[in-house]
């Protein structure tokens, strides 16, 4: 029996991605972000989310895609997983979709320039729409940041 999965759809460099809806706390318009020194470049800083200070990362930068200036459509998706609460800057976020679990396939090695370990699968929606599902735990994996920090301090 195929289960139904509700996902929030957002775009990043013309690809469509999905995050399970229960991992998403809110979606915010771009807001002032305070830079935090000595963090990896994709960490844009921290923002005030109704009285709570939340770190914000640029998902493009996180995946090694070229970063762009925020536009009218840019959104910050606040996700919470593994006790972490983090905001993702994405190009746009505008849809909630139901995905049947039997339409999800394992991701190929690289999709849209993103390594497979950050992805939990690729779902086919309708006829020709592909939705790349994020593996949140891996995206938020801090050990990689620590490595990056080390790398940054050595260079």
């Amino acid at each position, binding site marked *: 029996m195929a289960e139904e999965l509700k996902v929030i759809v957002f775009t990043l460099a013309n690809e469509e991605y999905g995050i399970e809806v229960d991992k998403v706390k809110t979606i915010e318009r771009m807001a002032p972000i*305070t*830079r935090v020194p000595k963090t990896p470049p994709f960490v844009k800083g921290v923002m*005030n989310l109704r009285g709570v200070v939340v770190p914000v990362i640029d998902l493009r930068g996180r995946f090694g895609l070229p970063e762009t200036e925020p536009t009218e459509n840019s959104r910050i998706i606040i996700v919470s997983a593994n006790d*972490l609460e*983090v905001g993702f800057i994405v190009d746009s976020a505008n849809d909630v979709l139901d995905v049947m679990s039997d339409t999800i396939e394992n991701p190929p090695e690289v999709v849209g320039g993103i390594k497979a370990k950050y992805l939990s699968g690729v779902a086919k929606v309708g006829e020709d729409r592909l939705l790349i599902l994020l593996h949140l735990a891996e995206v938020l994996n801090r050990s990689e940041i620590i490595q990056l920090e080390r790398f940054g301090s050595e260079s």
Partner: protein
Amino acid sequence: MEMNQYMSIFIDEANDHLQSLNENMLRLEQQPEDIGIVQVIFRSAHTLKGMSATMGFEDLASLTHEMENVLDLVRNGKLAMNGTIFDTLFKGLDALEGMVQDVVAGGTGKRDVADLVARLKAIVKGDVESQGSGAKAAAQETPASLTLDQFQQSVLIQSLESGHQAYFIEVTVREDCLLKAARAYMVFDVLEKHGEVVKSHPSVQDIEQEKFERSFTVYYITKTDEQTLADQVSRVSEIESVRMKAVDKSSLQEMNRAPEAPSSPAAATVRETAAAAAPAASAPPAPQQPEGSSPRSAPATGGGAVPRTIRVDIERLDSLMNLFSELLIDRVRLEQLASEVRRADLTETVEHMARVSSDLQNIVLKLRMVPVDSVFNRFPRMVRDLAKSLDKKVDLVITGAETELDRTVIDEIGDPLVHLIRNSVDHGVEPIADRTQAGKPETGTIHLRAYHSGNHVFIEIEDDGRGINRPKVLETAIKRGVLTAEAAKSLSDDEVNMLLFAAGFSTADKVSDISGRGVGLDVVKSKIESLGGHVSVTSTFGKGTKFSIQLPLTLSIISAMLIKLGPEKYAFPLSSIVETASVKREDIRTLHGTRIVEYRNTIVPVVSLAELVESPHYRDDGETETEMLVVRKGDKLAAVLVDEFIGQSEIVLKTLGKYLTNLDLVSGATILGDGQVALIVDPNALIK
């Protein structure tokens, strides 16, 4: 029945009852004759038993049951408390605590209590063979005596005169009845349809809270005849028996005189009911019951007036605080708008809102304050056990337990205090022989004090023990390599005392089970400092030692200096700022590659904040005159160059979340009046 939703209530209440059991057992140990305390203990144990059985924790219930049996004998004067009984009961309490902790941790609360149960049973049997159960059975059969105050009597007399019938009714519910309170309520419902209940025993509130055994009694006025009434009442399910007795004028008048004789059971119950009604102190000694009066029907005052409180999840308080700080930001915006619009009525409203919100702020902050008692209350028991195991006599005197501290501080302060108190009992107070030799009373005294002073709370632990032995401390310090023999000579007494807090230092000759397990006072010191506090020690050799801990009232609000670097804003904790000044560029000199500046006749290293935070918008090299902050860490100073001072402000501390850690430069963040986040600079990171 879905039990999970009751689990947290069970855990909270079980902990409360265990705490009260512990406290009262200690009191009882001091005053073993006070049956009032036994009553309180008995009630707590009884409630705990009931709760545990309902939740299905059989071991918990059965152990409590046995303890209750022992207590029952004690309160009926059939058993005198002695050291063995106390120890067994305390062991029982420990086991109960262990089980409750297991439940908290998600376990089943199971534990092998057979040994303890057997010992408790032995106590019951040993002294009073078979009387244990006999006494209980007898007690249950004794009808609850019930007396009336004058007003109620006159009501009854008047009703009788006006042709009503008055009855004394005793209702007994079945032993296996699950919802006693509900059944009782149904009985009351029936009764109230046909007449009026003048008086009930236990009180209606107690009955509603199931604070009665199997039976309750009422005085009742009605026009319905006895038979119909008895029928109706016994129709309520799970009712075992209904006994009704008509009351006439003469018996009422008889009772009127009864209270004059203080030794009669009637008088005792009058006093009893008075105690139940009066909002007494948290643990009122229940009035002493004359032997033979109905002990089982003692009113379950449940520890008297329970403070009217509710339990709130700390996360909810945090989110209340967050939302409130959002409100403050909106207030600032409104104030700005109002000053632009310049309309008198708008300004007035905004000003009023400002006043209300600052009151609200005080309340919100106070909500997070908890009396230190919640930490202190476990110490008497701890000191008792420690003293016993060390064969010492120690009194713990607690003062200022009502002093309030921020919840976050309270949560963290427990372990350091345990450590310091253990330390005082173990190393401070001498063995009895040494004390008598030194001409001191056998019993050592440890004072645990808490009090407010300014924006700080002080906690002191003072013992009248042997004090700090300077030569021995120095000897150990040198042996452990904490300092050199040379340096030791020039130390002041205070500096020697502070050596106790040095890492890897322990003066105990033997490593005992209680303290001196390698983790020393250095852990205490670093813990307290991480809370923004300060610990010091003073001592007179031979007279005693005093540890003094200074803690900030709250961790969530600090005074800070806000500064600007171009458009970016940063906050510096005011506590670490010595002075603000401006410095001419040419006064900054370079010495061995380090930039320095002369400040009040000392040479201070210069740190550029813009460089440290890699500010993209501002460089200080271009300026001819720069603002500087002189900050302090211990006795070291540093001058921090900044762009511009904004001013001093009270800021609410926030964490940056778990995603961003290992930020050595930034200790946290705060939300400014304009809704933006400003980072708080950790001055300790600026001084190497």
